[in-house]
């Protein structure tokens, strides 16, 4: 029973963190129809940035969360025009060209990180590392809880932004009809760049938490790419609210399979669920994707 509860808590906590990656990714897909193969690499870069900032500037990595958000916001904003070029113009299959482009981007980022920072495994320590709270019989690691809380808060803030702000409404409108939004005065290229930038910013921030929780190395991205893909398919491609249940499902699936079956089958279980979803509910668990 104790183990069951602990497993439940572990799963939910990780799910909360995955939401952050999923939300940006799903939005990016929903609005611009871009599947970013580099999603895991943004996580990795965020983690590394936190590591180097702590190395050179000291202090706690959590302090740098806003800095990293804005840093990756800026980077995403600057990169977007290239992606835009890849997916527009007279290309044979624009959406797929975007996929290939980000595929190349992922390889580029990963290779760059490997070359610059090598194969060393780094880690950062925060003031929460190693601390934990007791929740009944289960232990809640403080850092994970912080990650979870951050994930949920960031997502709620983000959803509120989408629901109520002017840009938020414009983003949702654009997801439905880009041309019409443009006719109403929305600079759709800039808003797209902004969406992409928010996505990279959020993902970079998630990277800080993930880096603090696990260890940091150049190859760490792959796993989060898997997660992001899994989450958007399960949520329904482009259906942002679906990300929340999907991410929790993924977290729980991981922890329960690891504890009650075997850690070796965790990823397989994930892939199996992904396959089943594509087979029976291709538009996501809630049937709301496109």
């Amino acid at each position, binding site marked *: 029973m104790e183990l069951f509860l602990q497993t439940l808590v572990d799963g939910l906590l990780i799910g909360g963190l995955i939401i952050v990656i999923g939300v940006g990714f799903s939005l990016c897909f929903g609005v611009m129809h871009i599947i970013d193969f580099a999603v895991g690499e943004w996580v990795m870069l965020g983690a590394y940035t936190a590591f180097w900032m702590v190395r050179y500037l000291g202090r706690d990595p959590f302090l740098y969360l806003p800095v990293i958000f804005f840093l990756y916001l800026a980077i995403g904003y600057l990169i977007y025009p290239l992606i835009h070029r890849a997916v527009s113009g007279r290309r044979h299959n624009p959406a797929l060209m975007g996929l290939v482009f980000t595929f190349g981007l992922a390889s580029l980022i990963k290779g760059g990180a490997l070359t610059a920072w090598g194969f060393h495994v780094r880690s950062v320590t925060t003031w929460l590392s190693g601390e934990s709270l007791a929740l009944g019989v289960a232990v809640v690691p403080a850092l994970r809880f912080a990650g979870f809380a951050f994930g949920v808060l960031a997502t709620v803030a983000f959803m509120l932004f989408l629901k109520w702000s002017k840009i938020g409404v414009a983003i949702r409108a654009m997801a439905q009809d880009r041309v019409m939004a443009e006719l109403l005065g929305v600079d759709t290229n800039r808003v797209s760049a902004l969406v992409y930038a928010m996505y990279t910013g959020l993902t970079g921030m998630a990277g800080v938490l993930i880096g603090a929780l696990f260890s940091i190395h150049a190859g760490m991205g792959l796993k989060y790419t*898997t997660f992001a893909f899994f989450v958007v398919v399960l949520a329904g491609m482009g259906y942002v609210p679906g990300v929340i249940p999907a991410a929790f499902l993924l977290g729980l699936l991981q922890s329960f399979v690891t504890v009650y079956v075997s850690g070796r089958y965790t990823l397989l279980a994930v*892939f199996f669920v992904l396959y089943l979803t594509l087979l029976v509910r291709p538009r996501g668990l809630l049937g709301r994707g496109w």
Partner: protein
Amino acid sequence: MAVPLFVSSFWLRIATEVLMWAGLAQSWNIIGGYTGYLSFGHGAFFGIGAYTTAILMVHAGWPFWPTLPVGAVLSVLCAATIGIPTLRLRGAYFAIATWAFGEAVRQVATVLEITGGAFGMQLPPFLNLPFFYEAILIATILTYLLAYLLLERSMFGYKLRAIRENEIAAETAGVDTVVTKIEAFALSAIPAAIFGGLYAYLITYIHPDSVLGPAITDLMVVMVLFGGVGTLWGPLVGATAIQLVNRLLWFLRGESTLYLVYAGVAICLVVLFMPDGLMGLVERRRVLFRPRENLKALLRQFKL
């Protein structure tokens, strides 16, 4: 066909590799280029072929040759299994599903006992390089011949191109698009599996990371993109160029993990500036030299 005797075995090995990649790239091109559905897990078929050969030879004591068709059949079955749910959906779903499939196969190979799990497998060594050179040469020629006959010279190829251009219109013109796409995907898996089997026997040691790693698919995609998507000779041009450059850089050393960066930059640049690949450049030249059409187009444009 005969092995050029004066060639040192080192160069023979390089030639063998180039040929193999040319064949692999063409296998990807069948689904990714001609059909327009990006398979980001194509390496899985290569790995399935490699493991089938290894398992049958090591655990069942089979001779080499009969293992190849078994690997091909297995790959075809897997392709159908993946293709049936996903080829009904948009291309993005297919890309994600194949990607997941590639990762899943790697997981399976790492978990199973029969594949040696994370230890990998050793095959009985048969280090007759000319044999492999010839075998891979034949396999590559057959792959291109198949591509030529089936994709450039038969009904099937027309259907695939129609699907790539406009799936709905193809469907109403009587093309059973789902079946055709699944056929194309299954077909594209065959050469990949055969090369996998040959590779396993050539290298004698296989491991989930070496025959099922994402790098295999990455390279296929890059080679085809670089050469020219959906053209017969594009994959050959792309594979030769990239594999030779890769080996040359290796030979001259000075290489590190930068190869990932090169590959990434190459993909991005090709997508941005040369979406039709090297063959596209050739094509464009040819178009330039079609004076009559060009003149007509010009006249139309200026309504003369």
